[in-house]
């Protein structure tokens, strides 16, 4: 040990003019910034400008960027070059997960950044940053190859701000897995927080639509009316069924409760009997269905909630 300490700090004479002292970070960042391999991955119009950026006129190999790899396993840079659709974002996230760290994402063009001109489309994701972390945004529609190269240089500058000691991907706890979205009735972000939020909004909306819905009547089979409740459980005390022709009224008994999604059948006519528990017999005097007869369901305040009308049969 003592021998070693005596020689540190003093370089051998033959090497003394050939040693540069620098930080590990500088070497690390210099090396990787000029050997950044983009993935051969095109989405839409911007991909054409990406290809052109690699041709002789723009020549992105000047920046060590020309080794485009078709496999995500060998690529460091994912260029989102075009409109991200809901159908495509699933494979994109999967590809991103397959890339090895350190990996970077450039959002190229208006569509990838925020949906662009297609933002209002039903199949368009308004910006890839809803699903992936983006390092550099390149504006334009499409960005010219010069603009894309400027994006590369900006990314190189970002490298210089990173240090081996603080970057997340060397930490033990780091996995870097991004949840892959799923295709349901619409795109589903499978991030647990996002899932919970969707569920909460959906349940609130469902409850609101239930609360707004009132019991409805419709025609059943022979001489019956079906009373259905698409809304929340309702107390029908004071409600009535009224017929325009025979001027008959059925008063619901006090405490009559119709469950949410519940259904009862209202029987009329001479042979009307209540065939099962919960069914109602309105009247045994006359059958319904006269010419142009109207049946209305009237609530406790006296307002008609639901009306059915029989067709007038002309002789």
């Amino acid at each position, binding site marked *: 040990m003592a021998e070693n300490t005596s020689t540190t700090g003093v370089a051998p004479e033959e090497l003394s003019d050939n040693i540069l002292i620098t930080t590990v970070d500088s070497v690390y960042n210099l090396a990787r910034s000029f050997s950044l391999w983009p993935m051969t991955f095109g989405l839409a119009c911007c991909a054409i400008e990406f290809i052109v950026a690699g041709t002789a*006129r723009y020549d992105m190999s000047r920046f060590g960027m020309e080794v485009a790899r078709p496999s995500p396993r060998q690529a460091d840079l994912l260029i989102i070059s075009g409109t991200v659709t809901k159908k495509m974002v699933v494979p994109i996230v999967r590809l991103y997960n397959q890339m090895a760290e350190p990996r970077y994402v450039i959002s190229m063009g208006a569509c990838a950044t925020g949906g662009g001109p297609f933002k209002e489309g039903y199949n*368009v994701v308004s910006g890839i940053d809803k699903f992936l972390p983006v390092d550099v945004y390149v504006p334009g529609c499409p960005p010219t190859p010069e603009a894309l190269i400027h994006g590369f240089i900006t990314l190189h500058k970002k490298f210089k701000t990173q240090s081996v000691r603080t970057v997340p991907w060397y930490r033990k706890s780091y996995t870097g897995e991004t949840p892959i979205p799923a*295709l349901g009735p619409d795109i589903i972000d499978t991030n647990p927080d996002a899932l919970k939020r*969707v569920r909460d909004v959906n349940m609130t909306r469902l409850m609101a639509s239930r609360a707004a819905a009132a019991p409805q009547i419709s025609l059943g089979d022979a001489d019956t009316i079906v009373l259905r409740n698409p809304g929340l459980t309702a107390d029908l005390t004071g409600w009535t069924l009224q017929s325009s022709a025979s001027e008959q009224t059925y008063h619901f008994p006090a405490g009559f409760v119709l469950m949410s999604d519940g259904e009862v059948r209202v029987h009329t006519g001479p042979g009307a009997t209540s065939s099962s528990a919960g069914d109602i017999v309105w009247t045994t005097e006359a059958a319904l269905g006269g010419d142009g007869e109207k049946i209305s369901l009237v609530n406790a305040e006296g307002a008609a909630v639901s009306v059915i009308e029989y067709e007038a049969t002309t002789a």
Partner: protein
Amino acid sequence: MSEETVVTPLPYSDVLPGAVLAEETDLDGTSLVVAADKLPELARHLRDVEGLDLLSNLTAVDYFGYKGRTAEDRFEVVYHLFSTEKGGGPTVLRVRLPENNPVLPTLVDVYRGADLQEREAYDLFGIRFLGHPALRRILLWEGFHGHPMRKDWQEPYYEAESKPFKSRHPDGNYAWAEDRNPWGSNVQYPDGFDPLTWQEPVSQIPLQSHAGNGASGMLKTDRLIVNMGPQHPSTHGVFRMIVELEGETIMALEPEMGYLHRNHEKIGERNTYLMNMPYTDRLDYISSMSNNLAYAIAVEKLLGEEYAPTERAEYIRVIMAELTRIVNHLFSVGTFLNDLGAFFTPLLYAVRERELILDMFEAVSGSRMMCNYLRFGGVARDLPDGWLEQCKDLVFKRLPGKIEELTTYLTGNEILQERCIGVGYLSPQDAINLSCTGPQLRGSGVAYDIRRAEPYSIYDRFEFDIAAFNGCDVYSRFLVRMEEMRQSVRILEQALKQIPEGPIQSPKGQGSYVVRPPVGTVYGRIESPKGELGFYLVSDGSGNPFRYRVRPPSYINLNALGPMSIGNKVADCVIILGGIDIVLGEVDR
């Protein structure tokens, strides 16, 4: 008796009584309203006896809320039939369907090219075609809620029926679409949908396998299913193929698309007519000027004589369209060689010339790729000073030599010939029946070019030959593209010599940002570099198209991908796809 003498008999009532229900006159000529159950019979008659062999466009229209339409005839399926032999305009068939049960028989048995378009009408409108071999969603995914092109279906960021939106007026308070949507992003779920208990359904893609000849020799081989795409370097974007292989031989190939379906048509129906012009640039983003031209022609047909483009504008349009054709074919040939394994070098040569033409585009329109240059009744700006001289320099001096240079390097190249000759065979009859157009059709020896068959703009003034080769293989399609570049240079030479001075906009079209065409429907089409690019427009008299349909050539040419690939080696399906020359912006829209 007197009644019978007054009524002129409906067309085809002698051969198929009751098939044609009515004859209607529209801005575009006459069309026949057909009884749904008699449709296949009538189509067969039209194909075999009347010679209408090309089912070019098949689409649906949802007349929800349209004046004079009820629930009984809410949906309409429209067919545009052409004759490759005689040329000329379309024969239009219309089938009207009720709201509650929109079902009609499929035409796949008569025109196999109806396959993808019927699936699209099913996907976007919910119209069912009885007897279709695999009627499933094509641009969206199985399980998507609703049929989005229906007029009563609203997207998550829905704001109003038509633009300009009130909220975007300069003094109004703009509300972000994200804030208006309860989920805070571009999604919507049916009531009560619970993502935590929802399970992703297993969807299966049916493969229509070939039986095979069992001649794989002594070896007994299993069949293998290989998925290519949507991220695959050979698919020119986000296209996906599911291939079934026996050894290396393709036994079945099923295309999957929609990965770039960005709702062009739905957005187009909210836009005003002029707002759609920049969107058309992004259809086939290699050849934006051609898309502008097709759209302008369709809308001008709708608007009538007053919006006819001026003489100078017509020349400028032809020059731009032909430059675009060269750009497209250069890029197509370059990437095609990439697919063959000649990685990047041929593309570098091709892109060099392309860049020079893009500079010309940038000079007139301000943008390299998304030109947005044409207007109804003319073009947006006049050519800048010195542009014509520069263009003449390019067309007369540089391009012919460079095209010959490419020919020298490529056409006679032994490797290219070995890989391409005899690969992807498509007989002329099949090509027509599968609704192929453009180089795909002409590579099968059918000399059908809309610039000659139904001349638009001023193409009848120019001398040029239709490039057609009858090898019926990938090599012929390659040769067609090389020859078309030469013919485009020929047209350009004539146009550049003849171009007159004068106004670039018809007086009526000058500064007209909102046009209100009369009520009616039109179908306008051009020979775009990839094939027949058509726009079918339905106007209800307002400033927004009621229905805005793009007939995308590269999408419909994909009908032939499966039939062409079966029996070839798996490496060949890559170049067969390259030979079709698809652009996903146009395939998926």
